[in-house]
């Protein structure tokens, strides 16, 4: 546990040692099932994550849990309050809980989440649960790290469900209406079912009702998650999806890194800085300036012309 803790610390902080660890562990992965739990704030994601974790831990599996909370825009700090909700679980020797702050990332998870998942996998976790921050409309980055995405909502969030349609419908494998003892639960379930009918995938997600604090319906959720795993493995999507995710991650890293290097280059180049100030003062339009800056960059790199 100490070794994993140290390794994850390096990866979280994107240190050189962290990159070494990532490099080294990429081929050491087992076949961990990565389950994402996402949904609006306050729906009970933590409680459900805890219940699922408990089931798997009691079966003797090694479980990793990653909880993500938002970084405060004010000074970049964060209050990570998910772990305290999993006190009893944290005591189990086969459960490892890691809290992460988004550190400015807007997709609902932290930028390092994928790498953390990889390292946990390499250290032998059978299941890794990723609990996202409470998400709004377009923050579904969890699909880039998870095999099975569970979308949680509660009765009475009708409008929120409509907006969710914009992105998550193609991605969630299981839908949960939690706090199902509240009025409106059945309506929420049928609304979701109608939306699912309209999707074209071969996997038809189920809509489950749960009352997480009473552990009601959580076993069915577990079964659905397991069923999705079987489906992925039988249809070879298990491997196919991972391939896609790995490549997507590659391009994301390229873009981030490129952006960073580009910014650094522009900031330290006097000539280019002049163009930047001219745009700032409204004396030059951004398109012409961009053309010139990119032309300069391409000239200077091997990718450019001869």
């Amino acid at each position: 546990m100490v070794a994993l803790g140290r390794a994850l610390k390096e990866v979280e902080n994107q240190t050189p040692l962290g990159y070494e660890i990532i490099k080294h562990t990429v081929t050491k992965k087992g076949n961990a099932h990565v389950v994402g739990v996402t949904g609006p704030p306050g729906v009970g994601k933590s409680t459900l994550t805890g219940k699922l974790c408990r089931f798997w831990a009691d079966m003797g599996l090694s479980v990793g849990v990653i909880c993500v909370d938002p970084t405060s825009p004010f000074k970049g700090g964060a209050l990570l309050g998910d772990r305290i909700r999993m006190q009893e679980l944290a005591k189990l020797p086969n459960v490892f809980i890691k809290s992460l702050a988004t550190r400015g990332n807007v997709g609902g998870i932290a930028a390092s989440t994928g790498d953390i998942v990889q390292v946990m996998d390499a250290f032998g976790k059978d299941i890794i649960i990723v609990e996202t921050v409470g998400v709004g409309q377009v923050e579904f980055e969890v699909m880039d790290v998870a095999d099975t995405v569970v979308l949680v909502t509660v009765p009475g969030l009708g409008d929120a469900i409509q907006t969710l349609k914009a992105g998550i419908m193609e991605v969630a494998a299981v839908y949960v209406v939690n706090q199902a003892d509240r009025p409106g639960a059945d309506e929420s379930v049928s609304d979701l079912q109608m939306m699912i009918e309209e999707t074209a995938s071969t996997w038809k997600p189920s809509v489950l009702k749960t009352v997480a604090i009473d552990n009601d319906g959580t076993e069915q959720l577990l079964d659905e998650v397991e069923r999705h795993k079987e489906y992925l493995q039988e249809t070879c999507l298990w491997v196919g999806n991972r391939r896609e995710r790995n490549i997507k991650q590659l391009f994301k890293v390229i873009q981030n890194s490129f952006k960073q290097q580009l910014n650094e280059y522009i900031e330290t180049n006097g000539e280019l800085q002049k163009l930047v100030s001219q745009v700032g003062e409204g004396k030059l339009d951004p398109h012409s300036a961009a053309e010139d800056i990119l032309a300069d960059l391409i000239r200077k790199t091997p990718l450019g012309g001869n």
Partner: protein
Amino acid sequence: MSRPIKVVMAKLGLDIHWRGAVAVSRMLRDEGMEVVYLGNQFPEQIVNAAVQEGADVVGLSTLGGNHNSLGPKVVELLRKKGLEDILVLMGGVIPSEDIPALKEKGIAAVFGPESKIVDIASFIRGKVS
């Protein structure tokens, strides 16, 4: 330090007063640190959390008199796991006459009731690098 400092904050043992621990946690967040608030925990669990979370700092809050017995235990358990580089701080109500012994046993600093957050934060930044 270019990356946020990670703090694990716990109420020590059975200690009931959470006002200070939560206020300090929130204010350390305002100072740019990432704080995992653990609630009430005993030394073994506090150390487990510090390990799993990759903590730079462990903060122990107590007003009830268990500082002498449980505080140094946290330091001891961290050392056993080879994690002596983690800074262990205590806060709450701790008699001044007990502080030298606590420091000797590895508690880096004790912040009493009239401490200011800027002092706590700058102490932490000074030690963690």
